[in-house]
């Protein structure tokens, strides 16, 4: 724990780690995801995945970046506003993030800035945001 305790400070965010329900969580909308990715790779952390979720109250998107450090799961959480679903891509720093960024773009229409998308799951021509579809629409 002491080894990861310095991470919020190194990222310049005010929060602290909270351990619950299967992970250590650090939540802050001011997380610089590229700095976070660089920091985790410097620490020999393994990228696991990104979880995206539509926020029911305001239509924004929550992104959880999951990393494994020696068996400990670390999750960095940030939110994107509904009218600004854009965050920097980390796939050039961390090739393992390539497919999941493409998938989240297709499921939730999040734009990972600084990258191109080639179709992954959906067919060419389908609109991004398939998981945002509501049955009554």
């Amino acid at each position, binding site marked *: 724990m002491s080894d990861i305790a310095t991470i919020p400070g190194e990222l310049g965010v005010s929060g602290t780690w909270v351990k619950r*329900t*299967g992970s250590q969580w650090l939540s802050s909308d001011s997380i610089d995801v590229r700095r976070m990715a660089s920091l985790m790779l410097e620490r020999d952390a*393994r990228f696991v995945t990104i979880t995206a979720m539509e926020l029911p109250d305001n239509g924004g998107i929550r992104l959880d970046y999951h990393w*494994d450090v020696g068996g400990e799961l670390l999750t960095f959480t940030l939110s994107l506003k509904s009218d600004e679903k854009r965050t920097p891509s980390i796939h050039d720093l961390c*090739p393992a993030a390539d497919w999941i960024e493409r998938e989240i773009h297709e499921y939730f229409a999040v734009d990972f800035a600084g990258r191109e998308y080639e179709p992954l799951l959906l067919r060419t021509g389908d609109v991004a945001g398939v998981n945002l579809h509501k049955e009554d629409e």
Partner: protein
Amino acid sequence: MSYRIPIGPYHPALEEPYKLDLVCEGETVRDAELKIGFNFRGIEYLAERRNYVQVIALMERVCGICSNVHTLSICQALERLAEIAPPPRALYIRVIMAELERLHSHVLWAGIAGKIMGFKTMFMTCFLLREKVMDALEIISGNRVNYAMNRVGGVNRDIADPDGVLAVVDCLEHEVTRVIIPIFTSNRTALERCVGVGVLTTEQAKVYAVVGPTARASGVPQDIRRAAPYAAYAEMEFNVPVESAGDVRARLVVRALEILESCRILRQALKKLPTGDFWGPTEEVEVPAGTAISRIEGPRGEVLYSVTSDGENDTPQRVKVRTPTYANMPSVRLMLRGARLADAPLIQASFDPCYSCTDR
């Protein structure tokens, strides 16, 4: 002059639908492009429209080989949210089911690898052994594919005859030691097809964050059973086989040794199976608001479930599934670069891909 060879999405060299576009110069593969999504079923989307009982059954359909892994993962996540601790007997039964599933998956894979190498006898031998494992799974669960064993707070069925399962373990261990390991490690034909083929270096495995036997065959000793134990794995003694060569042979050897380690775990779990209940006291579970994460070491590697509840509805707000093949598949491009065209089917099969899991 380079040329492109499209393979798939339906092709005899690929067992399931995905597409490989190989860029070749002569007989040498220079690059490969992968296309997935032919099995896309929108399972994560559907999960947000099913109640917590239905969603367990839905997740069991993510994969036909490691179906138990998916129900175990989501049940663990829901138990973390609801702060439910399954009884010790249930935790042991979960280990037994998980290891039988690993045996079934690894033996199936060894058979497929044998077939692709042209070893029909090996294919038949492995599938005969796989039948025995599936018989054991059927005796325990009543099912051969979707076992429906896991529930929130425990398991749905007890193991009435641990000695019967032990007999299967003895048989399997004997046959793997007598037939599979010697052939895959010393037979000249097998070695010619596997040694130095489809290499993924340790550095590449780390950069691409591959998981499971694929990572361990490239010298990355990660195993969630050891690093973050769940169910009753903390009470089991086992080794995590690791090879450093990163080639097809290393993937074969790691899986063969893992079969023996699974037998070892099964023997301990069956002999020490605690007495008592195998599910918790409540039939209905209330899931409070929050997000929980569960990780399992499936046959192909780490499976991650992230489940979010709003605490008000009986349907999850979000269910995220990260399957091991999803993490591993991008690295097949590295394995194929520089390979002989004729080795491409074996290389793509060597990390035991599951397209059903990948596409969800």
